[in-house]
């Protein structure tokens, strides 16, 4: 089963993801322009693009655990997923800036409102990752440094979940579920055995 899946995936070129990526964005804006997103389309688009960004971050974080625990190899798609995540985040940010707050008090919002501060920091951390998502950068930085730099995606994912947690009104499950998924995916990366040894050494 897994072998067949991997064989099938080997035939799918990563550039297909780049071709498919703009489709949902264009679709959402088409729905908004034609009045099919209800009476407050700007908010719906903003929210949908935010959710897409979270889904993409989760997809990117899922690549390694999927390979380790399920044997499904999606490694060759990971860079495309990351780059696409950046563009969704950018679209989300621009929707907020242009359609929602319309450039009013933007700086005040960024420093004063926690959920916006957190969102902006996540976006800022995403910039170096997007800029170095090419083979030239990997060579220039060296694989070790490059890999270390791209671990920034872990805090970015946490900040993304926090951004969602901070912006809802009242007690709501949806952002909590996203947070749990992200924390769960990050937990698979912790080398528990090392941690245990270290603790037992301290204890010892």
């Amino acid at each position, binding site marked *: 089963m897994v072998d067949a899946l991997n064989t099938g995936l080997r035939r799918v070129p990563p550039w297909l993801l780049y071709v498919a990526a703009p489709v949902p964005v264009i679709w959402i804006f088409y729905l908004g322009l*034609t*009045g099919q997103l209800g009476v407050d389309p700007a908010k719906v688009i903003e929210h949908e693009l935010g959710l897409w960004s979270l889904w993409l971050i989760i997809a990117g974080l899922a690549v390694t655990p999927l390979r380790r625990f399920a044997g499904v190899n999606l490694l060759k798609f990971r860079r495309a997923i990351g780059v696409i995540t950046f563009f969704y985040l950018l679209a989300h940010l621009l929707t907020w800036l242009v359609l929602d707050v319309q450039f009013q008090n933007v700086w005040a919002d960024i420093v004063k409102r926690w959920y916006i501060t957190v969102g902006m920091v996540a976006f800022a951390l995403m910039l170096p990752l997007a800029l170095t998502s090419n083979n030239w950068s990997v060579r220039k930085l060296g694989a070790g440094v490059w890999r270390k730099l791209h671990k920034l995606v872990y805090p970015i994912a946490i900040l993304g979940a926090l951004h969602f947690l901070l912006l809802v009104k009242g007690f709501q499950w949806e952002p909590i579920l996203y947070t749990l998924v992200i924390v769960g995916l990050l937990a698979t990366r912790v080398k528990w055995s090392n941690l245990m040894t270290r603790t037992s050494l301290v204890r010892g």
Partner: protein
Amino acid sequence: MAYRWTNTLTSEDVTPYSAYLNRRQLMGGAAAGVIASSVPMASSAQEALEPNTWEEITTYNNFYEFGTGKDDPARNAHRLTIDPWTVQIDGLVDKPGDYSFADIMSQMTIEERIYRFRCVEAWSMVIPWNGFELADLLDWVGVQSNAKYVAFETALRPDEMPGVSRPVLDWPYVEGLRLDEAMHPLTMMATGIYGRDIPKQNGAPMRLVVPWKYGFKSIKSIVRITLTEEEPPASWNVANPREYGFYSNVNPNVDHPRWSQATERKIGGGLFAKRQPTLMFNGYEDEVASLYEGMDLSEFI
């Protein structure tokens, strides 16, 4: 009774039901072609505060008992039983008791009020309500002299309200007003919109409307009204006192901790609707500012 407050907007400003249906069709047709904004919508009509359409008012609601999504109430509220409907009126009143909605309606004079509606989430509408002044209801049951506040409670029906299974707020939803706010001629109980019975997602059969306060103060589907001496609890204030005060007057100078209240997006302007400045007391400053004389409104939020 009634007509103590004069509307600056008249029934002329209400788009007739048939006309707005036509306009919807027109916009739908135009949108398929180029963009919606190409439809000739007189900008002067916007200045004159054109009421929102029936569709906008009844499909974009915050009524968390039916779900937290804006379209959840329109989808789920049909399950609410509103006939029979009883309102318990108690506390410091001369004639406490369980009043049927029909009893109340038989005593009240229904009039139309076109009010601005400003949500704490920084969106707004203009709504042509039908209803009666809360003061008339309170006069009818007789308010005792030591009463200082009015407490309100929304129905809590787990079988009919899918949203209350989740602890978004401490159910039932409760709200409160100071007695002078409750007796103010602008404060009304709405029982209709556009001359039709108020839809369930908008708070049928009877909801409060306090146009100079953020929308969440205008509690929906009321089952209990209690006159009290002490300030009653208000759900959002209990949930997050830093963000939602007891007064919650619309005030462009006092921001919500998580967003600015200086401007608002009027619902219905489409994807490129421009933000508009929010008015002090939502534009009812002349009528209500005196209620808060001597109060620091950045402290009493």
